[in-house]
């Protein structure tokens, strides 16, 4: 048994969907004990999100849920009931970190006000994740990842200037907020080890994006320039995926030395024409240059270009990989990155593994994602010592 970095850290998890569950997954995967509170009958709505294993019968728990809820125990309980409230209050007394991602004000409506929690447990760290934070004019705005990219400032500098701005696929904003929430939770927890007083932490998903848009705001504040999206090539190779024979590479070059290395890598005679050897020349002949470069890339293979760039020419090219490529990738295989999990999951299905490696206290999946209410008895009877006659919740049918 490995030792765990967050051994003995107790987490009470009121989260659902993505941002909060990724936060508590990080805590759990590095050793914390996580109790996930789920509402009766339906549980975390993420249980019902795709992808599913298409070859198996429905209903089944979604794979995204199974990824996000490893190393957690599920307590199915109704926070609107007095019984439920009493139970979580007892749990809160024996908790280090409470994480929630309800809409602002909802936790209060369950009677779990800041004052109440502070009274129950002065050392408690309370982490609240929400769309736009617990204060401010957008506090109650509705949103999903698309809206976070727009109002976070990342979308405007994403895409082509001759088209609408775009965003990353999937739910990146929510994962970022979940990661930041986990870091902030540990900072505040670390403080309680010495000074012994808890904190309330306010995480805004919008701000997780806005904190990490490099100089989008700073270029205005320092030089009056408002940056925009990708403009036409204009004589330089864009640092953006370019089509090759069997996919895409990202040709990354810095300055003239790198340009000659790229010409060399492409083995294209015409690119050595003196009119293309200087930045000014390439700019003057931009259109001709672009056509030549694109056709030179199109006849090359992606592996040949990527390995050719890195192995012999110290160019930091990128290789665009999809899931199929990643499963075969020698570095990911070396790291043993992808993981199969137990718990009613096909042996074909593989999950992303450790995001980073801690040598003495490694990432570890101790338990797969729980069924809804799987740990009711363990938590209610054994942990907080309720009588066995706690009211039966409405039947849990998770379809597992």
């Amino acid at each position: 048994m490995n030792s765990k970095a967050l051994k003995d850290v107790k987490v009470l998890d009121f989260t659902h969907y993505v941002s909060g569950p990724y936060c508590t997954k990080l805590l759990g995967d590095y050793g914390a004990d996580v109790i996930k509170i789920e509402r009766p009958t339906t549980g975390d709505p993420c249980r019902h999100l795709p992808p599913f294993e298409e070859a198996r019968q429905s209903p089944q728990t979604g794979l995204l849920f199974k990824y996000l809820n490893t190393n957690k125990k599920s307590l199915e309980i109704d926070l609107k009931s007095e019984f439920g409230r009493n139970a979580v209050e007892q749990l809160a007394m024996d908790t280090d970190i409470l994480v929630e991602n309800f809409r602002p004000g909802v936790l209060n409506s369950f009677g779990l006000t800041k004052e109440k929690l502070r009274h129950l447990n002065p050392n408690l760290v309370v982490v609240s994740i929400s769309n736009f934070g617990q204060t401010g004019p957008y506090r109650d705005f509705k949103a999903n990842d698309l809206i976070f990219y727009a109002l976070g400032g990342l979308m405007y500098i994403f895409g082509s200037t001759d088209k609408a701005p775009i965003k990353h696929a999937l739910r990146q904003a929510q994962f970022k907020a979940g990661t930041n929430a986990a870091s902030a939770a540990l900072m505040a927890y670390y403080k309680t080890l010495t000074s012994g007083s808890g904190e309330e932490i306010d995480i805004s998903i919008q701000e997780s994006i806005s904190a990490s848009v490099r100089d989008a705001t700073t270029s205005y504040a320092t030089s009056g320039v408002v940056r925009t999206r990708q403009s036409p090539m204009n004589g330089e190779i864009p640092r953006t995926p370019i089509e090759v024979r069997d996919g895409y590479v990202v040709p990354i070059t810095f300055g003239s030395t790198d340009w000659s290395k790229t010409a060399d890598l492409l083995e294209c005679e015409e690119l050595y024409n003196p009119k293309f050897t200087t930045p000014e020349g390439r700019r003057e002949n931009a259109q001709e240059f672009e056509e030549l470069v694109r056709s030179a890339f199109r006849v090359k293979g992606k592996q040949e270009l990527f390995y050719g760039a890195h192995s012999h020419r110290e160019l930091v090219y990128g290789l665009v990989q999809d899931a199929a490529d990643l499963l075969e990738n020698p570095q990911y295989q070396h790291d043993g990155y992808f993981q199969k999990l137990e718990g009613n999951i096909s042996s074909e299905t593989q999950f992303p593994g450790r995001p980073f490696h801690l040598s003495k206290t490694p990432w570890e999946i101790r338990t797969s994602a729980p069924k809804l209410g799987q740990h009711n008895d363990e938590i209610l009877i054994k942990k907080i010592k309720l009588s066995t006659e706690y009211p039966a919740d409405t039947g849990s049918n998770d379809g597992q």
Partner: protein
Amino acid sequence: MGNNGILSGIRVVELSQLIAIPYATKLMSDMGAETIRLESAKRPDAYRLSDFYDERLDGDYWNRAINFNEQNRNKLGLALELDNNNALDQLYDLISISDVFACNFTPRVMKKFGLEYDNLKKIKPDIIVVSSTGYGHSGPWSSFGAIGFGTEAASGLSSATGYEDGPPAQPEIPYPDYTAAEHTVFALMAAIIHRSKTGEGQFIEVSQSECVTSTIPEIILDYTANKNVTKRIGNSHPEISPHGCYPCKGRDKWITIATQSEKEWNSLVNLLFPEIVTNTKFDSNESRIVNRKELDELISIKTMEWDNLELMEILQGRGVSAGAVLNGKELLFNQHLFERNFFEIVPHQPQSQIPKLPYPGKPWKMSKPTQGNMKPPPSFGQHNETILKNYLGLSNKSYQELQDQGAISEKIDIVAKEIIVSREERAKEGSVYSYDPNFKSTIKSYFDI
């Protein structure tokens, strides 16, 4: 810099460049850790060499480098040439009185200077060392240098991102560096907590590419379970329609709208074009997904009549998920962020002649405020003397010797790259959205600084 924050008492030494480590240590410095940023005059951080305050290239231009300054506030600066053995010994001494050593150069560089964990733990048994690399600290791709555009491609994220039928797309920032840095902060905090309970240090390996892959489980799972390769669909959502970015009144103004329920759809359509409510092409989310393109075009015709911020307020007032696409200036002046004091007002070293400026703040707010109290980013070599003499007890004579050997310095002997195209011209040709020559007074009055 010990601003009595949560992490005061923790000393971090970083041998770093660009963002992947500097942003992580910035977040920790903001919370009170004392971070010492190593630099080299021979191999300066690329961020010291481009993009300067007011585009001024004269004098010590490197102290006015905006991306360096953005990533390195609240840090101390030590400029030391590690290929000088005496200087390298000073670094070992510094590590012996530090808690964390953080590096985002390739493993080759760490090895060359004897900065691997196995060596450093002999100097400081409970040291925590983090190596953040593009693809991994060991293994077949570990020697490959990387910047964000490369790791983003490798991670799997780019393959699923982009306009429908177009190539993979990436934003105009090194995106994975931030994802990796955010995970690095978490990893360091976990290691610091473990050390505070057990006295044991350790080695942390961060692969920037794998960090991002950990945030795209849907793609990995749908492929391994079902052999489905996720396609690029722009701003569309596989299960929701309408879900997109639509043009508004004005130059390059846009609004995003995501109708996450039938109720939101009804509110949207009642505002924009009540006449199509009964059209069977759009009467359910399923039919709207089938007729997505036609619907998006109809919505675009309507949104073009609106100001994007006004339309956002009205739609949100009716319970519809909508957000204006904010450019950098609009983000900086956004009322919501302003009321939340999101931007931190950061001073600069007096000789740089840069006034206090607003920079993006922390991605969290603690109940006991840690806003304000920002210290300037270090000028190049600014704390050489403080660290070498006061922290490490170097004599005046030895300090002078290091100076004579060129192993410590306060300036960079590289001429700044000339700016070929002026801001005005760039705005005219469209490679930037706009240039405002009055930005200084605009900033000053808005933030009251």
